[in-house]
């Protein structure tokens, strides 16, 4: 029970920090934080799978599905309520993840990475060719409403930010509990030696499939929020370099700590905006050097800075 109350305290603190920070931040930073947190949810999905030793290079698939759900509902069904949109996209990702998860659960390592990548590239191909959905130009997305409340300007970006903060904290708390649950611990065991896990009576396939579906739903939520915040969706959401950035954040954060994923994602957004501003032609290079330095100096990611003692002790 102590662990549970720890999570509650940490969640409340995180929420207070996010809300307080949000009220103080200028508009541009608010937008950046919203995007950073939303994309962190997608990377968190990769972290869920990384705990069982799998790295998906195709998380853009669900990110894109989530974003297009928002775009399509707004354009063709006139739906703008953010709660409804999030719900629909989670269901859509649950359905699609439920189909692909069990199929991909047979694959490991590079094959898993490349198959998930090819799924997202297929979606990219389909969306680029579908002129009814805007082709490569994509769609504009109407501003969201919040259960009837239709803010504009600063109020809109603040509402979106607060909505994101609540979701992020709730998901963080749920996942922390999940990581310490039986399923979460079996995932870690799969990472170290899956044959032993099978001999002990747990199903590796089932564990991987469940993790895949969880990460699919997280990807969808991240996509909805990003699509609404930017106000535009296009097939690039499913392109492999987009997925590469999510993996980048997951690796930067490591699989040990949940808050580290959000920190890493916000760092990436900061590095991106500032290098865009100051080195418009070499920001990818900055990112690449940054990635190499992290892999060389912190093999288990930023999270290992907070968690080293705990892992060493067990």
């Amino acid at each position, binding site marked *: 029970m102590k662990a549970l109350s720890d999570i509650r305290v940490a969640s409340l603190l995180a929420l207070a920090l996010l809300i307080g920070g949000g009220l103080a931040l200028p508009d541009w930073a608010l937008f950046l934080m919203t995007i950073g947190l939303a994309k962190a949810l997608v990377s968190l999905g990769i972290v869920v799978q990384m705990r069982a030793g799998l790295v998906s290079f195709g998380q853009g698939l669900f990110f894109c599905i989530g974003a297009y759900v928002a775009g399509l509902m707004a354009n063709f069904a006139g739906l703008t309520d953010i709660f409804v949109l999030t719900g629909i996209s989670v269901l859509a990702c649950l359905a699609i993840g439920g189909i692909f998860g069990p199929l991909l659960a047979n694959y490991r390592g590079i094959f898993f990475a490349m198959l998930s990548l090819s799924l997202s590239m297929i979606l990219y191909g389909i969306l680029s060719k579908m002129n009814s959905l805007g082709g490569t130009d994509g769609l504009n997305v109407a501003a969201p409403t919040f259960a009837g409340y239709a803010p504009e300007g600063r109020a809109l970006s603040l509402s979106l930010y607060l909505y994101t903060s609540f979701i992020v904290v709730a998901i963080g708390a749920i996942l922390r509990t999940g990581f310490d649950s039986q399923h979460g611990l079996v995932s870690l065991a799969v990472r170290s030696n899956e044959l032993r896990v099978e001999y002990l009576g747990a199903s590796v396939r089932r564990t991987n499939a469940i993790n895949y579906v969880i990460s699919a739903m997280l990807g969808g939520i991240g996509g909805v929020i990003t699509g609404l915040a930017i106000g535009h969706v296009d097939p690039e959401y499913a392109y492999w370099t987009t997925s590469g950035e999510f993996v980048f954040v997951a690796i930067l954060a490591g699989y040990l700590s949940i808050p580290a994923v959000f920190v890493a994602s916000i760092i990436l957004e900061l590095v991106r905006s500032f290098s865009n501003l100051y080195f418009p032609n070499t920001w990818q290079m900055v990112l*690449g050097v940054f990635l190499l330095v992290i892999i060389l100096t912190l093999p288990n990611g930023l999270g290992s800075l907070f968690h080293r003692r705990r892992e060493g002790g067990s």
Partner: protein
Amino acid sequence: MDLFLVILVDGLIYGAWLFIVSVGLTLVFGVLGILNLAHGSLYAIGAYSTATAVGIYFAYGGDAFPLGSYAVMALAALLVAVVIAPLLERGLLRHFYHRDEVIGVLVTYGVFLILEDAIKLIWGVDPLFVYEPYDLLGMVEAGPLFYVAYDFLVIAVSAVAGFAVWYFLNRTRRGKVMLAVIHDREMSQTMGVNVDKVFLLAFGAGVFLAAFGGALTAPMISVSPGIGVNVIIVAFAVIIIGGLGSIEGAALGAVMVGISRAASVHLMPELELFIIYFVMAVVLIFRPEGIFVRTQTRKI
């Protein structure tokens, strides 16, 4: 019948090109165990170097002997390999041989990001053209259609390259040593093989093949930023279909993808963009690790 022939020829041309851009990737993975995401960037660097070198060649009197531009293309690719391979392999990749395969992918993803910007810094963002070598050989009549003879040169070069790699690995002493390192690195080291040298040689060959693929492609396209990004994905698909690390697999994968793509272009153009993933998914459903797989021991 004509359509069938057209699909076959188009498929072989595209397949030959696919083979030349992916064989280096599979070779590097086979020996070093690193799936090189920067392969596409090396291809792009090969294409840019060729564009520059051939441009210089014709600017300084190459018109007198235009066929010499082919030698210039090969030299440009060789130069890229000699400069870049030791830097990357000795300076970076060798730190990751004992790590997970996925870490290798990420490290090379970092290299990819760096090289993409480096290319823009060196050659700028305006497209370059080197059409001279493409037009040199004239046209060839094949059945009802005319083809640029250069396309058939690609098939020939690709076949020669594939044979050379196969011959080297299976019929020469150095190649057999390389195979020994692939099978058991520690045991080869104990037997006195200089494993570091073998790795550098294999990576150098991989970089050369990537750059050479770019050199061969440069006359057919406008050399512009981003050409490497798409190549890497199709090359991956090809070598995954064939089985990672297998040269024969890469050849078979390239021909399968080439012909499927040609068939879709002529029969169902809307499928062209993702036919390659479709072939890959179908192959992986039946052969989860590709067509030619090396047996692996399981650790309990």
